[in-house]
């Protein structure tokens, strides 16, 4: 199981979009990492997210792989994930931080 935590600003990603994003993430992770993702949404309530000390529109996606990845594989996954996210949500690349981590024991 690939852990996938999505920290999003509440109200920025409507439920309908979130469902579409979850479906897209599920298919993508299975295809590229060979395992189903366990997606957890962590909404940040309005007034509770800041970037540069000001109200934030940024989302943070943290995906933890089941096995260590080569850097080449990791980079391609990161770029594809951000492309998927911006495509599904309409946000810019400046509004998404993506992390693809190796499992904790590595």
């Amino acid at each position, binding site marked *: 199981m690939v852990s996938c*935590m999505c*920290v999003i600003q509440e109200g920025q990603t409507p439920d309908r979009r979130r469902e579409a994003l979850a479906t897209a993430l599920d298919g993508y992770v299975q295809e590229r990492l060979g395992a189903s993702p366990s997606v*957890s949404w*962590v909404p*940040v*309530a309005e*007034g*509770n*997210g*800041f*970037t*540069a*000390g000001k109200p*934030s529109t*940024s989302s*943070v996606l943290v995906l933890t792989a089941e096995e260590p990845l080569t*850097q080449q594989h*990791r*980079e391609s996954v*990161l*770029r594809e*994930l*951000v492309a998927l996210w911006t495509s599904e949500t309409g946000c810019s*690349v*400046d509004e*998404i*931080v*993506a*992390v*693809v*981590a*190796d499992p904790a024991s590595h």
Partner: protein
Amino acid sequence: MPLYICNSKRGAVDAAAKEKIARDITDIHCEVTGAPEIFVHVVFFEESAQFPLGESTLAVRGTIRKGRSSEQKERIAGAVKESLMQHGRVAPEHTHAEIRETPASWVLEGGEIMPEPGEEAAWFAAQEERRRAAGLQ
């Protein structure tokens, strides 16, 4: 990145205090590391199960790029804790601040893999150029 996640007991920190703490964390991180503030993210939760509070009333977990010195990490954690106590009006024994690290090569922000600490100049210049070209600066 960095990402500072603040978790507190319900109602322990009001909106004005959150703004001040977020401002302080941003300034502290930038002063200690030299990073530009546009990359500093601070989020607040109340009794979030994902980020357990333990015995604390107000706690912060900062995840920064790997490679900062122990002295830098201690300075950040100490100053963040001071801010929590001052603005959150919480006793020292009920506040907690910790710094965790993530390799820069694991993180993509602004559409590019983050640079290693100390190797930011070219990366930031490219980011500024991209943002300028996109009319964002």
